């Protein structure tokens, strides 16, 4: 298995509180992604990173921010959590970006986040 660790694995918090999820990789892959998974929607891309301090928005980025200060760490922050952000969040890594090299993505085991 690719060396990807997500923390925490489970979190319950209240509406309006800030939440930060962490993704740590030991593979030295350049590209990192944050997805959310909801019933009926599959995986949807929130933000991604193509290098240290280089990030871009995905399909569902509103209400989320990210930071990448080191190759191995990619943080996802919900500045003021809302109930609609209750979901399972997955981090993924890859050696190349989609459309540029035929490399798959490798996923962590997810963070189950509940916002009450």
């Amino acid at each position, binding site marked *: 298995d690719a060396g*990807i660790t997500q923390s925490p694995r489970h979190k319950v918090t209240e509406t309006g509180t800030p939440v930060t999820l962490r993704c740590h990789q030991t593979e030295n892959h350049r590209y990192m992604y944050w*997805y959310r998974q909801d019933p*009926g*929607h*599959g*995986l*949807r*891309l929130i933000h*991604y990173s193509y290098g240290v301090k280089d990030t871009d928005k*995905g*399909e569902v980025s509103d209400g989320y921010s990210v930071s990448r200060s080191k190759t191995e760490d990619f943080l996802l922050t919900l500045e003021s959590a809302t109930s609609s952000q209750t979901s399972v969040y*997955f981090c*993924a890594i890859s050696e190349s*970006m*989609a*459309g*540029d090299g*035929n490399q*798959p*993505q*490798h*996923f*962590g*085991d*997810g963070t189950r986040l509940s916002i009450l």
Partner: protein
Amino acid sequence: SQQGEEDPQALSIQEGENATMNCSYKTSINNLQWYRQNSGRGLVHLILIRSNEREKHSGRLRVTLDTSKKSSSLLITASRAADTASYFCAADYNTDKLIFGTGTRLQVFP
């Protein structure tokens, strides 16, 4: 949205039977990828098929790609109870992002 569709949404079979899942996508692709997700776990990459390939095998897995119909199929032969999982296709539309389908839930009964 470029999200593809998978069918069936759910599939139940007996051990030893074959399971076929289909994926349709929207526009031309660079490649099409298949992933498996066990309950409570992350996605695991199974097979990547490039746009110029028509068929690819990996153990008991066979993937086909028909670019004229914008569709792909994943065949699992001689299914086992351990194959019980959700299966997702993901399209690389050459736009720096993968677009995932909504998945097929496969249940294999012993």
